[in-house]
């Protein structure tokens, strides 16, 4: 890899009481790639992703975005820096509409006096943009943009969450278990969405337990074990069984992969 990584983390440590979730973990994401992060339950994947997306603040360590050190104190700050996250629970508000959800926390106000004085929201602009983003990703089977999210199916909700991330993520999109709660067909659709997002040049961090999905879309696979990065492998050179063996500790990781 001659390119400079767009997002790196070095020596991340996060402790919850006596539990060390992250033990000097490292992380590298290169431009335009899909990096899968796999690891056993409790390996610290989620903690690492939360640290990168601003949901938790690491106790130690450094995160760099495009070479610049960043210190996110909230998901808002990470989002402002161009890192969007699709959480496993989707972080959608069920009673609010699709449009409201897509713009939650970054609402557009009306221009002019109404926006300034009364802080009126520009509903039509938000709806138009939400509709455009959903159609772009081929999700416009959703007819009513003002429909409450709780009336959508699991796949549609995932679609809304991915569309939100793709619409606002300018540098990195992180997806936590995007296919975990979905059926076979809906998973397929979401994988296509992921490839679609990469085609637009956005690098993606994909956290997943689904080995076939990981091996299908990932360019590189980051294997997390016991709170740190064990190795990074190329999915073309290793089999799924190898990956599982590495992440459970059944097999020692390959020497050359450690350096990657």
């Amino acid at each position: 890899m001659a390119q400079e990584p767009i997002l790196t983390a070095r020596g991340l440590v996060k402790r919850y009481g006596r539990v060390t979730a992250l033990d000097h973990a490292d992380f590298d994401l290169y431009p335009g790639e899909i990096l899968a992060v796999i690891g056993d339950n409790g390996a610290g994947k989620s903690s690492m992703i939360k640290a990168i997306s601003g949901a938790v603040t690491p106790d130690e360590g450094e995160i760099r975005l495009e070479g610049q050190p960043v210190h996110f104190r909230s998901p808002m700050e990470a989002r402002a820096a161009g890192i969007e996250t699709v959480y496993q629970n989707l972080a959608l508000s069920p009673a609010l509409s699709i449009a409201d959800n897509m713009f939650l926390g970054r609402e557009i106000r009306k221009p002019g006096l109404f926006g300034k004085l009364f802080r009126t929201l520009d509903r039509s602009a938000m709806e138009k943009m939400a509709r455009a983003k959903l159609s772009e990703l081929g999700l416009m089977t959703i007819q009513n943009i003002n429909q409450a999210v709780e009336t959508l199916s699991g796949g549609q909700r995932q679609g809304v969450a991915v569309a939100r991330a793709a619409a606002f993520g300018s540098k990195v999109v992180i997806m936590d278990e995007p296919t975990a709660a979905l059926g076979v067909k809906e998973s397929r659709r979401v994988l296509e969405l992921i490839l679609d997002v990469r085609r637009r040049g956005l690098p993606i961090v994909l956290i997943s337990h689904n080995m076939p999905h990981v091996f299908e879309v990932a360019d590189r696979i980051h294997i997390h074990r016991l709170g740190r990065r064990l190795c990074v492998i190329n999915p073309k050179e290793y089999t799924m069984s190898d990956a599982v063996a590495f992440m459970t500790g059944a097999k020692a990781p390959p020497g050359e992969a450690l350096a990657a």
Partner: protein
Amino acid sequence: MGEPNTAAQPSQEFEKVLVNSSTDVASFDTHDKTPLQKIQHFLHSTPAAVPFVVLIASILVFGLAIGGRFFSSYTLTLILQQIAVVGMLGAAQTLVILTAGIDLSIGVIMVISAVVMGNCAVSYGLPAPIAVAAGFLVGGACGLLNGLLVSRLKLPPFIVTLGTWYVIMSTNFIYSENATIREADVTAVTQWLHVFGVNFKVGAAVLTLGVVAMVVLVFGLWYALNHTAWGRHLYAVGDDPEAAKLSGIRVGKVLLSAYTIAGLIAALAAWVSIGRNGSISPSAAVTDYNLQAITAAVIGGISLFGGRGSILGTLIGAMIVGVVSMGLNMLGADPQWKVFLTGVLIISAVAVDQWIRKVAA
């Protein structure tokens, strides 16, 4: 970095058969709905519709039972005058309930604000604007205290406001020595404390400025809840605080603002209540204003689980209670029937809310 298989061709063995399956992904069934499901969907998107229907029905029932007297604009506006204070407290309560909280102290915040306004004007001889401002300061401070305990210490709202209810009530009695400030004493120093009692006629209808204040307040809050980011955030926080936090909403700040604004509205309600009652009595603190405010909100379709309901529903809920109690009064029924019916209405409202929430795609 090689291109993986194109997604259009499923690469997993078990997905090969998908080629033969239908290609439309997760489309919507807009058909196949029974009329009942349509009603459920309509109510889901229009939360104030149920209380509105109940209000119209109760007006019709009492109108038919009592006759023309009930339909007079005098009677109907009298109901509005009677519910002005509870309607405002209900609006304050609505803000808190929308965040999935509850404010049991809202009634005593109102009473202590009224007592402070009266004492500042009568006992300390301060100018009316300063007396009113002091009342708002006390109301806002009480609300802020609730908000800090809920958002910073993360204590359950029920416990926090149960505690502050007692603390504020006793402070009210200790501070005022339970002495009522007579109407004549207030009138002697200023007209301003009674300004919301000023009435005017629109045809045969008699309205007070207090009624106007309540309506303006409710519509102002309706605007804020539906057309500003703050309002959307309030709903999101009540709906799913974790999702709201991950979406970048500062949940603590939203909670703090909800409780503080509720306190300020209670102070406004205090001012209106001085106008309506004339005198200022610290012993009003034992009235169950909290429960009346919660009743208005719940009958109005505000979900106690947070995040759902329209503040217009609260206004309608307060009106329903007003219409029922006025109607039973005019029929000469035992006042306990009003209490009885209120209980039935509360349980029905929550049952309907549960049913509406089961709406599915």
